[in-house]
C-alpha cells in the first residue's frame, strides 16, 4: 500500500499496510523526500513500528527518514505509559543519546578566524580523539565511569572542566536523575573507561561553522547568534558504553519475547511492557548512558576550547565560547502530552529525531522559554547546518519532535564508487573547507552526495509545523571521525 498525501507536507501510511498495525503511519516531508523513503524500504519500517503494543496516534517519521534496522531512522513512536505501552531499545538505537551541541563565540569569521583557519583546524584535530579504537581525553576507572553515569556533565564540572553555565544550557540540565548506573554491565563500563571525550567514527564530527544567515532575529539574539560569527558544532554520542548497554538489554528483551505474547514483524523491535522489570532496568541503564553521552560532548567541548585558547592566545571565556544548547536525537523519554483532550504520560521514542518543545514549555531552561527549544541540525559534511526552534504546534503534530539531520540517501558502498576519499577531500577544500579527517580514505562514505538535501529537510519541518528555522551556518573546517 502506497502512502497517500493527506496534507501539504504529510503522507499517511494506512492501517493494513502490514498486518497488525494499531495506528496509521505519518511521514512528514516533500514529494522528493518521500520518494526516497519509499525507495529504501523505510516506509515499511514506519508501518512495522505501528504494530507495537500501546502505540498512540501514529507511527511518525520526520522528513530525513531513511531505512534503519527495526525502527526507521527519523522515527518517533509514543507509547501509552498508563496503559499497555512498551519500551523498545531498538527505538532508541545503539548510540544512546547521540546528539549535537553548539558552541558560539565572539569571533568574526573574516576578521578573526579566516586568517588562522589552518592552525585552528590543526589544533582541533590534535585535541579531538577520533576514529575507531581511539582513546578519549579522559581515562577513567570503573568507579569514576559510574559517577559519570549518575552525574552526567556534573562529573567533568566537578573536576574543573567546562563552565558552570554549560549544564544549564544542556537538555535536562546535563543529567538525568532517573539514571541507574547499577544496571550498566561491567562489559559496558570497560568500554566506557577509556572513551570519555572521544568523537568516534562514521558521521560524527567537530565542525567549525560561520553563521551565514539569520532568519529569526529574536530567537537568534536570545541564543547569542549573529551573522558572520564563528561557531563550533559537535556531533557524538555515548560511544562503546552506550552501544554495549543497548546490546545487553536488547538481548534480554529478545529472550523474553519468546515467552511473551507480543509478536513483532522485525526481531530488532524486541520490546517489553513499560513497568516490566526488564523495562525498568533498561530505562535506568539507558538514562545512565545518556548521562555518559552528555558528559562525552562536554569533555569534547573542553578540547575545542583548549584549541581556540592555543590559537588565539586568549581564554575561552574571553573568546565567548559558550554553549548554545546540547540535545540528543536518540532517546526515549517520559513526557506529558494531550491526547483526545486528556493529558497523558507517554514514553516517546525518538530514533534519529530531535525533541522540539515549543515556547513556554516548563522543561526548557529559563533563557529559552520565550522562544522555544533550540534544535541543532547538522548538515552533511560540506553543506549547511541549521539552528531551529521548536513550535507549540509540534506537540500536537509529532509529540514535539522534528528532524535530526540531512538523512542518508546512498549506501556507503555506493558512495565510495562515486568518488574516492581523496577526491571528496579535494572538492571540499576547493569549497573553502579545511579538513582534518581521521582517515582520508573514509571521507567518501560521508560525502555530501550520500545525503539528502538538508535545506529541503528543514523547510519540510517548517512547512509541517514541527519547527522554525532560526539560522543557517556554513562549514569552514571539519574534524571528522
Amino acid at each position, binding site marked *: 500500500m502506497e502512502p497517500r498525501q493527506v496534507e501539504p507536507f504529510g503522507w499517511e501510511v494506512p492501517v493494513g499496510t502490514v498486518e497488525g498495525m494499531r495506528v496509521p503511519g505519518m511521514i512528514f516531508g516533500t514529494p522528493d523526500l518521500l520518494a526516497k523513503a519509499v525507495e*529504501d524500504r*523505510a516506509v515499511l519500517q514506519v508501518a512495522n513500528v505501528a504494530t507495537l503494543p500501546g502505540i498512540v496516534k501514529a507511527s511518525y517519521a520526520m522528513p530525513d527518514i*531513511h*531505512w*534503519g*534496522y*527495526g525502527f526507521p*531512522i527519523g522515527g518517533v513512536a509514543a507509547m501509552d505509559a498508563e496503559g499497555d505501552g512498551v519500551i523498545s531499545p*531498538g527505538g532508541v*538505537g*545503539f*548510540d544512546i543519546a547521540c546528539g549535537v551541541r553548539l558552541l558560539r563565540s565572539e569571533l568574526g569569521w573574516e576578521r578573526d578566524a579566516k586568517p588562522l583557519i589552518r592552525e585552528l583546524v590543526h589544533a582541533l584535530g590534535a585535541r579531538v580523539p577520533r*576514529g*575507531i*579504537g*581511539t582513546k578519549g581525553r579522559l581515562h577513567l576507572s570503573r568507579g569514576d565511569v559510574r559517577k559519570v553515569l549518575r552525574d552526567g556533565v556534573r562529573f567533568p564540572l566537578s573536576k574543573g572542566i567546562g563552565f558552570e553555565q554549560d549544564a544549564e544550557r544542556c537538555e535536562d540540565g546535563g543529567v538525568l536523575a532517573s539514571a541507574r548506573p547499577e544496571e550498566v554491565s561491567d*562489559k559496558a563500563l*570497560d*568500554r566506557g573507561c577509556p572513551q570519555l571525550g572521544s568523537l*568516534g*567514527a*562514521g558521521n560524527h564530527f567537530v565542525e567549525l561553522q560561520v553563521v551565514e544567515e539569520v532568519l529569526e532575529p529574536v530567537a537568534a539574539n536570545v541564543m547569542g547568534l549573529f551573522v558572520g560569527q564563528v561557531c563550533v558544532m559537535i556531533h557524538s554520542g555515548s560511544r*562503546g558504553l552506550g*552501544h*554495549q548497554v*543497548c*546490546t545487553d538489554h*536488547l*538481548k534480554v528483551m*529478545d*529472550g523474553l519475547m*519468546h515467552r511473551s505474547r507480543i509478536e513483532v514483524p*522485525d*526481531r*530488532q523491535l*524486541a520490546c517489553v511492557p513499560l513497568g516490566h522489570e526488564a523495562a525498568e532496568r533498561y530505562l535506568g541503564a539507558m538514562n545512565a548512558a545518556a548521562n555518559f553521552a552528555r558528559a562525552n560532548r562536554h569533555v569534547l567541548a573542553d578540547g575545542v576550547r583548549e584549541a581556540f585558547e592555543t590559537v588565539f592566545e586568549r581564554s575561552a571565556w574571553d573568546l565567548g565560547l559558550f554553549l548554545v544548547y546540547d540535545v540528543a536525537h536518540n532517546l526515549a523519554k517520559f513526557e506529558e502530552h494531550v491526547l483526545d483532550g486528556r493529558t497523558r504520560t507517554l514514553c516517546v521514542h525518538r530514533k534519529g529525531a530531535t525533541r522540539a518543545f515549543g515556547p513556554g514549555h516548563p522543561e526548557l531552561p529559563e533563557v529559552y522559554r520565550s522562544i522555544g527549544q533550540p534544535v541543532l541540525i547538522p548538515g552533511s559534511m560540506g553543506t549547511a547546518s541549521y539552528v531551529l526552534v521548536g513550535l507549540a504546534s509540534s506537540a500536537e503534530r509529532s509529540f514535539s519532535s522534528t528532524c535530526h539531520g540531512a538523512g*542518508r*540517501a*546512498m*549506501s*556507503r*558502498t*555506493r558512495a565510495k564508487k562515486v568518488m574516492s576519499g581523496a577526491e571528496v577531500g579535494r572538492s571540499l577544500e576547493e569549497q573553502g573547507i579545511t579538513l582534518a579527517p*581521521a*582517515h582520508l*580514505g*573514509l571521507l567518501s*562514505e560521508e560525502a555530501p552526495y550520500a545525503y539528502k538535501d538538508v535545506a529541503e529537510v528543514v523547510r519540510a519541518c517548517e512547512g509541517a509545523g514541527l519547527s522554525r528555522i532560526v539560522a543557517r551556518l556554513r562549514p569552514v573546517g571539519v574534524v571528522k*571521525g
Partner: protein
Amino acid sequence: MSAVTPDAGFELLEHTADLGIRAWGTTAPEAFGQAARALVEVMGIRVDAPGRRRVVKASAQDPAGVLVAFLNELIWFHETESVGFAAIDVIALSDSGLVAEVEAAPLPEAAVGIGVKAATYHQVRVERRPGVGVEVHVFLDV
C-alpha cells in the same frame, strides 16, 4: 581471511545507512566463521602478525541469536583490548551456544575501517540448505 569460494565466503549487502553481511559455508561453524571474518574486514581490524590464541564464547536461545551474540562479543573484545584478529575459528556450535578460538594481536595503529556499533537482530537469519550448506544474514549498525 576473506577467501571466497562457492563453498565458503561472504559478501556485503547494501543498506542506506548501515551494512549487511551474507556469509556461507558447508557447515554452520564455517558460515559463522565467515560472518566473523566479514565483520573484521569491514572494521579494518584484520592483523597479519601472529597473535595470542584466545577463546570467545557466545550464547542465546536460537542459532540466529547466537550469531548476533558472537559478533557482538568480537566487537567488545576488539574495543576493550585494542586488538585486531589474525584468525577466527568456530570450534563448537549448537543451537544455543558457540565457542570460537581467535588469534588476537594489538592493532599497529588506529584501524582504518568502519566503526561498527553492534550486530543487530534486523533480518537476521541462519538457513540450513540440505546438500548445499548453511547461509547466514546479519546487519550491522555502523
